């Protein structure tokens, strides 16, 4: 792993360009009569890392799944690369999905395949690369996530953190324009979580992608996010930078920060090392 230095304050990173790459417009989603998303509006800009925060069960993952069309809204519109993905069939979604990648909560590696076959899978499906080129790309992506030489292993032989990193290698194999992370640190120890956080920032810079990170891990949100969006009661109650949020973004968000043992509302912005 290279390039990421947690000592550089977040504000020192160059501001991302302003082009909107994903847009939610009044998105409503109900599950068995219960409204999970109640008119969500959100704009995601090209190149940024946006963290979607919120308590469990508020529909963070559902929001994420709207972006690549795994879930369709009951009302409202979702536009990706300026094109609406609502109501598209699986085949029509294909060209958009090829430009996106998603990291699933448990990694979702194909357990009948080796690590190498898993990472090679999208390359074999969507490129005309030769087996040698594919093997090279696989090796490169695996070392990018800090797991060089694990090609022959089966997913069942890997720890939870390693599985997520292999899944991350698979997600970046096609160098997607947007990466969707679904709870990338849930169930991992703090050290591994931190490593994953650094990877997200590192990858975002190296292959110039836009990242949407769904999490309830505030430390992680603070490490990686350019902006964060707080989802509560079916709506985004706060969208802004982390320091804006800790300076007093929204009462429920404050409460949420405090419940996670995160001092806020004092104007005091801490660094990761102090936590």
């Amino acid at each position, binding site marked *: 792993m290279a390039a990421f230095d947690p000592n550089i304050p977040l504000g020192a990173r160059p501001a991302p360009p302003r082009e909107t790459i994903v847009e939610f417009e009044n998105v409503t989603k109900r599950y068995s009569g219960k409204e999970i998303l109640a008119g969500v509006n959100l704009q995601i800009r090209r190149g940024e890392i946006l963290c979607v925060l919120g308590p469990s069960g508020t529909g963070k993952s559902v929001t994420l799944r709207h972006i690549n069309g795994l879930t369709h809204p009951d009302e409202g519109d979702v536009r990706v690369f300026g094109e609406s993905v609502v109501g598209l069939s*699986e085949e029509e979604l*294909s060209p958009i999905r*090829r430009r996106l990648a*998603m990291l*699933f909560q448990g990694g979702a590696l194909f357990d009948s395949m080796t690590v190498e076959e898993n990472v090679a899978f999208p390359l074999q*499906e*969507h490129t005309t690369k030769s087996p040698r080129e594919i093997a090279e790309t696989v090796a490169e992506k695996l070392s990018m996530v800090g797991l060089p030489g694990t090609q022959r292993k089966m997913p069942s032989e890997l720890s939870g953190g390693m599985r997520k990193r292999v899944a991350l290698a698979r997600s970046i194999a096609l160098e997607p324009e947007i990466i969707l992370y679904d709870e990338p640190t849930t169930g991992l120890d703090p050290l591994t979580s931190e490593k994953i956080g650094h990877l997200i920032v590192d990858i975002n810079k190296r292959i110039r992608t836009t990242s949407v990170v769904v999490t309830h891990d505030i430390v992680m949100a603070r490490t990686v996010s350019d902006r964060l969006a707080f989802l509560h009661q079916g709506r985004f109650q706060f969208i802004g930078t982390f320091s804006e949020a800790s300076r007093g973004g929204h009462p429920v968000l404050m409460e949420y920060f405090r419940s996670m043992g995160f001092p806020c509302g004092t104007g005091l912005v801490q660094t990761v090392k102090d936590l």
Partner: protein
Amino acid sequence: MSAPQGQFTGPQPSATAIFYRNIRWLRFVDRFGRKGSAAMDYLGGLAELAWETIRACVSRPFYASEVMTQLDEIGVKSLSITGITAFSTGMVLALQTAYALAAFGGKMFVGRVVALSLLRELGPVLTALMVGGRVGSGITAELGSMKVTEQVDALRSMAISPVRRLVVPRVLATVLMLPVLTALADVLGILGGLLIAVVELQMTAQDYLTSIWNQLAISDIMSGLSKTFFFGFEIAVIGCFNGMRVEGGASAVGVATTRTVVLASICVLVSDFFLTKLFLAL
């Protein structure tokens, strides 16, 4: 709550009693309706998957290596159970026929009865039931656990159709292998009958085999084998559908697996009747 109890007020039940009785009726109708609509949803989904599978079978992309893997998994690995089933059924058939026909001195018909019952009915149906149990449940369990661990969603998110990648190879492999398994089962069943005929009934192998050979029509073999294509399709599509619609965790996979075995068996037996009727009419 129940209708008010009280003194006898004549033959007319009170308004309250009628009200509650109607509510009970409505609840019954409501529950019945819900069940019915859930069943319709299920059948609709099943038909949709069947149609999508057929469409995906005749268009690109096509995963030939996956089909090969499944041919091995579904076909070759089912050989032992279908073989044993057929062999012992053949033996039992020979014993029972000899017992039933002994009074009429009909021992020479044993071969014919065994062969006809096996080729026309028991071979295809028993093989389909065994494969339905082994392969159908296996498919549901595998796809179901892929579904709950988000591997199916992972495929979709990578712009790869789960129907093409997961369903089509399994359906094709089952449709192709079931007739092969049935043909082998037919042969083994007849051999089972032969064993009994020779050892228990003191017939010669030649008598047994010529009695079969002389009476057998090609339509006997074909009507049995052509059913198995339909059986194979039913088993695999039901297995895949139940696997793909699993929601929740490990227990849901178990429930879906049971449902596959039950439904696949029923479908095989019911469609067997209609297919037999159809082939007899042709």
